[in-house]
């Protein structure tokens, strides 16, 4: 089974581990992620001002590329997912903006054709934008995932961290219950984990503010990590490179601020999935973590 895949910039640069592990897992599950032959940055943040037609052009351009390959597009990074899904909604529901954006798309094609010989078609919001985890549930099926598990992650206490962008705005994302989501937990149960339910799983990690105001991000992330630690999580899994960065990179700072802080590894859910599917750890790329996850996984005899 081939599914169009939009990785986004971060997964091709600083989150290669996320991309690699996701592709390995997909392959193990019989899915070929077909990367769009041409794609650009999605814009990273969805504009919250109403007059921002230009600002959604990047997202729509990628949707238009993807629409040639099939009726779905899968993405992994929470930010990309948020932007693509919301751009898709606008193109589907807002006739006025749709027309304007398509005008821009046509102009874009004219200037690009010479370089890439790749034309952009008008886009009407016809794609289904899927997050990788939705793909696992709805396209592959959790039962099939379960039967592909070769190493049940029994005894491993995993805290699933959703963050913001998968769930909100709730009316547009329709990803899961924005207050008590379960899609992540259900996947972890399939893998045999002990799921740690912690109240900060939908709180913000500080997001992009880390770039300008690291303190802010440390505070936000600390609340999340400490809450997971209080419930004795062995490991935290995320679905977003920025969340992973914030929760993982600042743990030394957290240790300075919180008495008795013990560090906890933060990995991508695809890396954990890879372990359960028995994929070699070299392919899962546990090299970019500030807090090394290998020890914890080895301790539980999972690697």
């Amino acid at each position, binding site marked *: 089974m081939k599914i169009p895949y939009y990785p986004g910039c971060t997964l091709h640069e600083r989150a290669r581990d996320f991309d690699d592990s996701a592709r390995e897992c997909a392959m193990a599950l019989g899915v070929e992620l077909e990367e769009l032959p041409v794609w650009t940055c999605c814009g990273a943040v969805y504009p919250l001002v109403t007059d921002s037609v230009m600002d959604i052009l990047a997202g729509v351009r990628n949707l238009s590329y993807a629409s040639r390959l099939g009726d779905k597009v899968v993405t992994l990074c929470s930010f990309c997912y948020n932007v693509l899904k919301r751009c898709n909604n606008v193109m589907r529901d807002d006739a006025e903006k749709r027309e304007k954006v398509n005008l821009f798309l046509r102009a874009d094609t004219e200037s690009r054709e010479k370089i890439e010989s790749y034309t952009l078609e008008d886009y009407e919001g016809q794609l289904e934008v899927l997050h990788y985890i939705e793909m696992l549930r709805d396209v592959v099926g959790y039962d099939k995932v379960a039967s592909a598990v070769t190493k049940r992650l029994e005894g491993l206490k995993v805290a699933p961290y959703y963050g913001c962008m998968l769930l909100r705005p709730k009316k547009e994302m329709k990803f899961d*219950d924005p*207050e*008590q989501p379960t899609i992540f937990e259900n996947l972890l149960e399939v893998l045999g984990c002990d799921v740690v339910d912690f*109240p*900060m799983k939908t709180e913000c990690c500080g997001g992009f503010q880390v770039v300008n105001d690291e303190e802010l991000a440390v505070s936000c992330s600390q609340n999340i990590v400490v809450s997971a630690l*209080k419930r004795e999580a062995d490991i935290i899994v995320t679905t977003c490179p920025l969340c992973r960065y914030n929760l993982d990179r600042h743990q030394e700072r957290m240790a300075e601020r919180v008495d008795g802080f013990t560090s906890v590894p933060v990995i991508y859910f695809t890396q954990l999935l890879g372990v359960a599917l028995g994929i070699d750890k070299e392919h899962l790329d546990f090299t970019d973590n500030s807090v090394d996850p290998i020890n914890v996984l080895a301790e539980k005899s999972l690697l």
Partner: protein
Amino acid sequence: MGERIGVFVCHCGTNIAGVVDVKRVAEELADYPGVAYSTDYTYMCSDPGQNLVKDAIKKHKLTGVIVAACSPTLHEATFRRAGTAAGMNQYQVEIANIREQCSWVHRDNKEAATEKAIRTIKIMVEKARLDEALDPISVPMTPRALVVGGGIAGIQAALDIANAGHEVVLVEKSASIGGHMAQLSETFPTLDCSQCIMTPKMVEVAQHPKVKLMTYSEVDDVSGYVGNFKVRIRKKAAYVNRDVCTGCGLCIEKCPATTPSEFDEQLADRKAIYTPFPQAVPNKPVLDAEHCTYFLKDGKCGICAKVCPLDCIDYEQKDEFIDFEVGAIVVATGYDLYPIENLGEYGGGKYPDVVTSLQFERMLSASGPTGGEILRPSDGEVPKEVVFLTCCGSRDTESHLPYCSKICCMYLTKHAMLYKHNVHEGQAYVFYMDVRTGGKGYEEFYTRAAEEDDVLYIRGKVSKIFEEDGKVMVWGVDTLSGKKIEIAADMAVLGLATIPNQSAAKLANMLKIHADEWGFLSEAHPKLRPVESLTPGFYLAGSAQGPKDIPESVAQASAAASKVAALFAETEYHREPIIAVIDEDTCAGCRVCVSVCPYDAAEFDDEKKVARIKEAICEGCGVCIAACPSGSAQQKNLTDEQLYKMVSAALEV
């Protein structure tokens, strides 16, 4: 033809005359065929105005009257009475609506409004020219009332109707009457004990010779119309012969199966065979087959049957259906709490120390699961800090319910106060948006809570509640100081929104009475007819109509009862005669009318091979008339001929 129609154009002060040229209207109508007299007057509905009509009827020997004024819903009855007083048949008095549907809506176009007024009156003149003198249809009245719901509103309505001398059938779906009021501890603003004032009423209604009490029963079907309803009550199988049972309680004591108690809001267990609470009326158990070992394990148990000294247990019992004829129906189905599961940000019910307002009532109640002690459900400790939250699901147009649930401000104030009386050294916080104390003694009650019992009121809405370190963490805000507030509390109590009882929607549908989009039953008029439904014969009492506190529910129940008593004061009920009639000479006997009538009012006479309308049942919708291929079916005073002429008049230039 010899019709002599009088046209009376009302100015309604400037309401009509300020837009419509009333003089011109009266003058033009004077020349219209069939019109014998036409005039205008400042206020037609005033005494002199009515006298004008009466005098003209006599003086000009009028055969029909058109009052061109406000909507017929307002003064049709007034002028029909005036017509009758002057010797005219009331159904020959008609209203032309030139206010609500003319002068008020075409303010900016006086010329067009005047022309529309003329057309509107001509339409009614054409109707009146062919209106016949009719008599209201008398139907016998069954002076027996059905009251649905055995909470305080239903009990009060039943008692008042019964005390007025009429029979009442009181139907309650659970095993005991009492409703939510029986669950409450003490009541605001007087803090008298709910059970103490409720129990005597429960006993009184159960023992009243005019009241037939049917608990563990539901309305299964209703047909008919005001004065003559046929209702079918389903008496659910209780597996206990409750007529013989003395309520000794041996079966309950020995029953091995338990399940969470609805009455105690899941804070304690009850047996599979149970009475909901010790003071239940009737104090006789029912067996809940869903949780009974005998039923779940194919007859392996049967302890209750073995211990019952009177052999009351009957595992073979089936639902029973009992039919009644009643003349009026009072709906008092009450309220439920908005499901806590819908409030995920407060844990959605997964934190044991975040409780609902009714759970907290049970904790406060001396007969409740904690014997009136306030103890944390998680560990049984006395909570030192308790947070109370108003508007949990209320006043939320975005995700929950837009309306104010009305009673939460007050009951949470009461909760906070009673908690403080219980735990003197404890601290109570109330998060509020506005403390709504619109009731006698309510503001004083709130003041007492804040000043004497040191309840801290914090103005803001809580965003999130979660558990951390054995505490209930509350993230709120104080908008008055502009600070985010975090409280590590021991317990939180949610003032969940009031919603109509979930069985009410089904019932409203069956009874064909209107409900609003939230399921609260609609009154006939929000101000002037607050206890009647739009459908004749149905009356509303208590929270079924909208969130209400106890005094209001009782007042509304008594009001509904007085309406029922007034209805029953007549031995006959008069119905509008604007119904269908079939010309037997031209009827081809095709039975289309029989097939389309929603009331089974059209019947086929097998001997004569023609259809006939049952006068007492026809509601006058006219569906059969529009369907009749031969034109044999007609509506009295709204015949096809009248309609054609009215349409033509509507189009006169």
